[in-house]
Structure formats: structure tokens, C-alpha cells
């Protein structure tokens, strides 16, 4: 193991003890302060939100504490809570604008590329295992993560997916198509439905069987869209195509090039700057990934521009289209908005439903399973778990994540649709052996290390709270729990910390985004 991998016991003691962290940081992970933050459309978005709040007679919630925003950012972009290590580093940066810098740095972290690639893969290809051999979800994930890492414009990425040719192994983007293989043939209806939802923000698949009940989508339009993917079949040479029905776009035919293969023409049409749906669908989804709830619900049925109350979405979408579909810029614009920085606590007497609907308070939403487990595993370790961590930690994390997600209830492709909190989930959090393995003290868990190294009881309490809920204990909590720690002797102290960590993990504060 190299020096960069393992923290020495002394360094760990400093970390847990809370000395200035910069002194012990051995590696060169993207350092905030070096990252250029692109200019934000934030001012205009905030102005639109404020106008809307005023019109509704709503007083927005106070700004959230910086650590609360740090937690949201890390959950949205990494799927975990911030590590103690990261909190120390964040707090060591006292210059203004640290949240903007931090958000930009997170987006340059390989963990975020993997995490966001999985989110996008669900949208583009669903969460099913799919057809054997011809669908390689792992390769599609790698491809998406790599595109995010090199900041490829979002429209170019989508064009590659939609018009992809070749073998699913050599050209991983082809898995967008082969994800829809059923019985050896490409299911064009599935691809048409996905295309409409993911890239246009319209649920045309209702029109697969009948005309859309609310909007103006007809069955014939759906079939026209599906025909772009018609007659496709995976073969040892790649995708084969037999010409079939005449492809037709549901609107804006003038944006479509005359020449090219059907899917090339479709890809160009989808991402044509004159097609407003592409940017709006993406902006609504990015908003949803950041907040846990899309700007307008459901995430893939987005109303047209100019809809009252959705002016902020219009602005974000316009900026996205105007600046070359820069996904990173869009994420940062959302992350810097007043809505994202607002507290989740209501001003006295304010109505939660109306406030949340107008984005005047940060919405309280359940964490998705992968966020909950990511948060748990991270909280159980004082160090940041990522590609720099040792292999064993990573393997254990990956395995635990997979089975826990399955047991917690995988939301599938529709993960931004809000799901109720269930009794089965509560039981899993309370009694499953995984949380106990992660949170109960031993030399490898955070509570064990904290018990051993954090010194006095107030320090141990503070560190436990930071690791689990990214804040310091309240006065009430200190008064209640400090005596518990003070009275505990020997190994009992670790057990008290383990029990407190259990309580924090089972609290709403841990398993909800807020």
C-alpha cells in the first residue's frame, strides 16, 4: 500500500480530532479554489423565483446552513453524505463562494461521473438486466462516465446514443439500442417511448395503445417516431436494419435534415436548437437530480415554455441551449440558485405544500436507496471512500450496495417519481445487520476509531454527528448524551457511540434529503 492510500494513525487522530485538515491531506484530489466556476444564469433564475414567490404571497425560507448545502450537493452528485474528511476540508476554506467552488470540484470527481452515469443509464436504458450477450450495461455506464468526465456537450452525447452503429462491445453507445432487444429483435416501441420521455419530456408511450389522455399525442405520431428504430436487429456484425414503415417526427418536421440514415436524422432533429423540448426535458431532470424532485412532475412530462410558475425552468433551459448544452454549467446553475440554497425548515406558520410547490423552501424527499446506502457506508468510515480508497473497501461497498438496493426497493428507471416511506424499509434500516456492521464500533468503523481517538466526550459526540448528519449536536442533544458518554467505561463507550450512530441513521434527518 502506498503512502497516499493509508492514513497514518497520527494523521487519522488529527482528522478525528479536528485539527486543520489541509496539513494532513496526502493526495491531490481536485482542490477547490483551483476550479474555475463558469458564470451562472443564477441571477435571472433567482429573480424569476422571487417574482413567483411574491405573486403567490410566499415568504421564502431562510438560507440553509453551508453544511446542509454541502450534504445536498454530495448526495446529489456522489450519492453519499460528505465524509468527515471532506467536511474538515470544506470548513478549512473560509473564503466567500466556497459552495460554488465545492460544487464545481465535485463535478470533476470521478465518483460523480460514475454516480451520474448510473442515473443517466437508468433514463436512457432502464435498470433491467436486459438481453443476454447483446446488451452490456456495464459498458454503457463506462461510456457515459467517460463522456461526463471529458465534459462532452450533452447534445453530442445524445446524438451518439441515438444514431449509434456497430457492435455493443466496441461501440458501447450502441447499448442504448440493444437495451431494448426482446427475443433477438429491437423493440422500437420501447425506444420510441424512451426517446420521447428522456429527450423530449413527453410521455408519448400512453399513445402506444391509445391517444394521450391529456396532451395532443396521437397513436400515429408514436408509431411514426418508433419507425426511426424500426427493423433493427443485432447481428455479429453490429446492428442490421431492414427498411420498414416511414419514420415521421411528431412535430417540427422542418428541423429534420433531408439526408442521412433514419436515426441520424432523428438525432439531429432531437437536438436541433429550434427544438425547445430537448433543453427543457434535460433541465427538469437535472433539477430533479439535484433536489430529489423535478421542477415539474412527472419528470418526463414537461409543460411548454411560458407555463406560469415555471419561468425559472424556462431560463435554465434557454441558457442550456444557448451555451452549447453544457450539462456541467446547468448543474452548477441549479446548485447556485436561491431555491437550492434555501433551508428546508419553514418560516413560522407557512404552508409546506404551497411553499414546496413554489420552491420557496427546500423540499423534504426520501433518499433513493443508493443514496441511503452510500450515505451509510460513507458515514461508517471517517475517510472518503472513492477510487483512492483501498480495493477491499471498494469491493465491500459495491457488494453491499447492490443487495441493499434490491432489498430497499429499486425504483428502476422512474427513480425521480416520489415513493412513500415503507415499513419494510424502516425494518431494514433498524434491524438489518449491515447498518450494525457499519456503525457498531470496531477498529475499522468510524465509531470505533472515534471512540479510540477522539479524546473527550464532547469531541466524540461532535465527530459522530458530523459523520452521520453533517452537523454538530444541538444543545439539547449535548445535554442528553454527554452524560451517557461520560458514564461509560472502557468498551461501553464505543457501544454508546454505536447506539447514537444507530439513532442518527434511523432518524428522518438521515434518510431524507432536506
Amino acid at each position, binding site marked *: 500500500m502506498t503512502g497516499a492510500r493509508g492514513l497514518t494513525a497520527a494523521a487519522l487522530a488529527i482528522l478525528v480530532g479536528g485539527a486543520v485538515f489541509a496539513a494532513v491531506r496526502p493526495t491531490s484530489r481536485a482542490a477547490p479554489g483551483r476550479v474555475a466556476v463558469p458564470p451562472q444564469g443564477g441571477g435571472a433564475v433567482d429573480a424569476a423565483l422571487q417574482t413567483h414567490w411574491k405573486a403567490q404571497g410566499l415568504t421564502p425560507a431562510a438560507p440553509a446552513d453551508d453544511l446542509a448545502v454541502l450534504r445536498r450537493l454530495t448526495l446529489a452528485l456522489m450519492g453519499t453524505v460528505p465524509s468527515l474528511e471532506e467536511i474538515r476540508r470544506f470548513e478549512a476554506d473560509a473564503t466567500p463562494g466556497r459552495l460554488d467552488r465545492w460544487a464545481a470540484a465535485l463535478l470533476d470527481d470521478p465518483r460523480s461521473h460514475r454516480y451520474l452515469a448510473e442515473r443517466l443509464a437508468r433514463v436512457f436504458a432502464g435498470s433491467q438486466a436486459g438481453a443476454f450477450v447483446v446488451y452490456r450495461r456495464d459498458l454503457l455506464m463506462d461510456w457515459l462516465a467517460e463522456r461526463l468526465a471529458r465534459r462532452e456537450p450533452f447534445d453530442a452525447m445524445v446524438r451518439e446514443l441515438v444514431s449509434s452503429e456497430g457492435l455493443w462491445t466496441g461501440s458501447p453507445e450502441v447499448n442504448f439500442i440493444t437495451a431494448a432487444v426482446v427475443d433477438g429483435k429491437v423493440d422500437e416501441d420501447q425506444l420510441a*417511448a424512451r426517446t420521447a420521455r428522456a429527450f423530449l419530456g413527453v410521455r408519448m408511450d400512453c399513445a402506444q395503445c391509445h391517444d394521450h389522455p391529456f396532451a395532443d399525442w396521437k397513436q400515429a405520431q408514436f408509431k411514426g417516431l418508433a419507425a426511426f428504430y424500426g427493423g433493427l436487429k443485432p447481428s455479429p456484425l453490429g446492428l442490421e436494419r431492414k427498411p420498414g414503415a416511414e419514420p415521421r417526427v411528431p412535430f417540427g418536421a422542418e428541423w429534420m435534415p433531408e439526408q442521412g440514415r433514419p436515426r441520424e436524422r432523428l438525432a439531429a432533429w432531437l437536438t436541433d436548437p429550434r427544438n425547445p423540448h430537448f433543453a427543457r426535458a434535460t433541465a427538469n431532470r437535472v433539477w430533479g437530480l439535484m433536489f430529489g424532485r423535478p421542477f415539474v412532475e412527472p419528470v418526463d*412530462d414537461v409543460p411548454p415554455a411560458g407555463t406560469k410558475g415555471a419561468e425559472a425552468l424556462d431560463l435554465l433551459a434557454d441558457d442550456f441551449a444557448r451555451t452549447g448544452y453544457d450539462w456541467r454549467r446547468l448543474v452548477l446553475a441549479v446548485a447556485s440558485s436561491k431555491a437550492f440554497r434555501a433551508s428546508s425548515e419553514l418560516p413560522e406558520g407557512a404552508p409546506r405544500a404551497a411553499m414546496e410547490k413554489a420552491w420557496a423552501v427546500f423540499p423534504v424527499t426520501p433518499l433513493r436507496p443508493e443514496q441511503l446506502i452510500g450515505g451509510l457506508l460513507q458515514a461508517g468510515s471517517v475517510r472518503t471512500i472513492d477510487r483512492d480508497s483501498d480495493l477491499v473497501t471498494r469491493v465491500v461497498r459495491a457488494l453491499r450496495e447492490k443487495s441493499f438496493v434490491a432489498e430497499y426497493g429499486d425504483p428502476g428507471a422512474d427513480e425521480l417519481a416520489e*415513493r412513500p*416511506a415503507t415499513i*419494510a424499509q*424502516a*425494518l431494514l434500516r*433498524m434491524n438489518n445487520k449491515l447498518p450494525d456492521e457499519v456503525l457498531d464500533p470496531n477498529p475499522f468503523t468510524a465509531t470505533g476509531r472515534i471512540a479510540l481517538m477522539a479524546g473527550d466526550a464532547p469531541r466524540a459526540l461532535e465527530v459522530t454527528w458530523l459523520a452521520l448528519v453533517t452537523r454538530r449536536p444541538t444543545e439539547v442533544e449535548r445535554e442528553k448524551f454527554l452524560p451517557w458518554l461520560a458514564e461509560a467505561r472502557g468498551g461501553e463507550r464505543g457501544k454508546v457511540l454505536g*447506539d447514537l450512530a*444507530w439513532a442518527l441513521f434511523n432518524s428522518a434527518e438521515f434518510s431524507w434529503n432536506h
Partner: protein
Amino acid sequence: MEPLSFSRRSLLAAAAAAAVMPRGVLGAGARSAAKPKSLLVVWLEGGPSQLETWDPHPGTAIGGQVGTVKTRMPGLEIADFYPRMAEQVHRLSVLRSVVSKEGDHERGTYAVKTGHRPEGATIHPSLGAIVCHEVPVAERGLPPHVSLGKSQWPARGGFLGPGLDAFRIVNPGTLENLEPPAKVQAREERRLEALNVVEAGFGAAPGRHREAVDGALAMMSSPRRRAFVLDDEPRAVRAAYGDHPFGRGCLVARRLLEAGVRAVEVTLGGFDSHAGNHEAHRAAAQVLDPALSTLVAELAERDLLRSTVVLVTGEFGRTPKINVAGGRDHWPHGFSCLLGGGGIAGGQVIGETDPSGAKEAPASAVPVEDVAATVLAALGVDMHLELETPEGRPIPVTKGTPIRRLL
């Protein structure tokens, strides 16, 4: 705001005071004719071969090496891997011509468990979730929908919500997540006390979180949860089911049905025999035959069969042709399942596959949608019912037609 208070002890007291245990978990007792019906799905994961289970064709090119055994049903013979089922199968009906359009495990499972093809982004609810939704269980303390044993795709609530997902017990006979890990049980009071303090300080706390935790604590302290464990079952009964996860799963299933659980799924794997089909099916049968036959016999003895729809099936069958590895591949074009109980006629054989294996389509084909419709009809679900997705889209509860001969 009412102060939060999580405590198992107080909930235990409340549960005891309100204890409604008309059926109890022990002893069947007399049941009223109006008892709402339940669903039991015995899921044979991987796609069991029709030829090595309920539809053998010995002595033909496709028949393989399996022999046959006579059953109590005149004229019906099944694979001789199942001598004990031969004594019980007459209580159910045998469907030998089930057809599906899905030859992939995940999609095939979806089609059989929901009665719909997977399409678009709408996730259909499983049959168990539908019946839990339509005929809710009044008593608290047990989940209404349970999945027992290791399962790759357990029954889901789909668009009806994750609250109707089958509650999973991977290792039947244990309480799993219904109790804290043994080594920390003594610390539970302290943990709950700490939880109360932390929750009280969280201003944005959503009520739904507390409801779920309260529901969990209620389940953990309910006496009805004893239905999940087998300590009070006689040794002989446990032995009859078989001392392995599936045997225990079948016995727990019987206890859950007695306790009024609305839908139970028990899963047995090992049927995906692309190589060594004969051996794989013989091995699986050694587990399935005693467990399933004992379960059916006990349901009948305890008068539970009248109120329990029993469906024994996998996601599809296996090819008539035996491949070079001595295996059979996926075959959704004419496979077998057992169906009965809950008012569905027993003693019937429906459909016929071609003994030469030349014809793909079986005689009197029964689409998987129709199997689902028959189950739902027997459970009293209106065939014309439309369920609503959260977006307000109406979805017909079934696209199939109940099998008239069985109802």
C-alpha cells in the same frame, strides 16, 4: 406538536390491548364461509421443464429419460420425480398449454407475475399486490404480502406503490429484519430513547417517516409475527416439509395463510437447466415434491384450500429438443402450471402439447394473461376494474379472460 416517542414496550402494550387474533397463528379453528381469500404462488424460478414435471412424454424423441407415475386423477400421469405430488395433484388442476410471449427470465417473470407484458415505463403490480390492494387486510402486525426464499424478482407493488411490494424473508423460519441482531438486542431501549431525542430536534421531519417507523415497531412487537417462525411446529411436520429453505418456506407460507396474510410467494430455484436437464430437475424435485405435496395436503386438511388460490408455476417452460449439453433451453410456447384452490376447480387437465415436439403451439393454448385473469376472478377481483397509475392513467387490471372450465 405531539412529542415523539418510539418504544417497543408501549407498542407491545397497545398491541396486546387491541389484540384481535380471531384465527391466531396456531391452530386453524373454524372459519366462516365469508373468509376473504388469499393467494399462494409457488414460484419455480428459472423456468421448469414441463416434460420433467407435469407433462411428461416418455418414450418419445423429446421425452428424455424421465418416467411417469400414475396420480389419483384418472388418466393423469406426471413425471416420476414426483411420487408424493401424485397423491395430491388431484386437488389442483393441471394446465399443460400455457403460452407466453416472453422468453427472457426477467420479462417472462414479469409477464407471469403481473399478467401483463413489460412495456414502456409503467410497472404493473403483481397479482399478490392487486389482491392486497383490492381486499385489504384489516389486522396490523403482519405484512399483507410476503415473499419467502431467495428470489431474483420478487412480486412487486408496481404502480400501486412500494408499500405493496412483497415483504421479503430470504431465510424462511427466521424473523430476519423483524427483530434486531441478537448481539444488540439489549441495547434497543437506549437506541430508541436516543432516536426520540434526535427526531424531536428535526424541524423539517416528515410525518411519513415516523409512520413507517411506528409501523415497523408495531410489527416487531406484534404477537402475530410468530407466524414467521417454526419453533412450535412438531418435528414430524417440519420433517415432512423438508429441512431446507424451501421446505421451511412452504411451512411458513401455511402459517402465514392461517394468520390471514393476503398473498404469499415461496420461491425455489434451480430449474434453468441449459445443461444437464435431467439431473437438475431430479435434484429440484427432491426438494419440491415433499414440500409442495405436504403443503397442499395441509391446506386441504386445515380447510385452507377453499380460501386459498394456489398457483404453482415458473416464468416459462423448456424446449422439447434436448441440446448437445443434455439441457433444455427456454420455451414459452406451451408449458405447464398447477392451479386450484379458492374456488377454482381441481381435477382438471387443460391443454395438450405435441408429443413429437414438431408443433410449437399446444392444443387449447392458455395465454399467461388468462392464468392471471383466472386467479384474479377466483379472488373476487372485478375483471373490468381499471387501476390508476399515480399520473392518473387508467390501466385495466387484466387483459386476459378467466378460464371458464375452472370457475
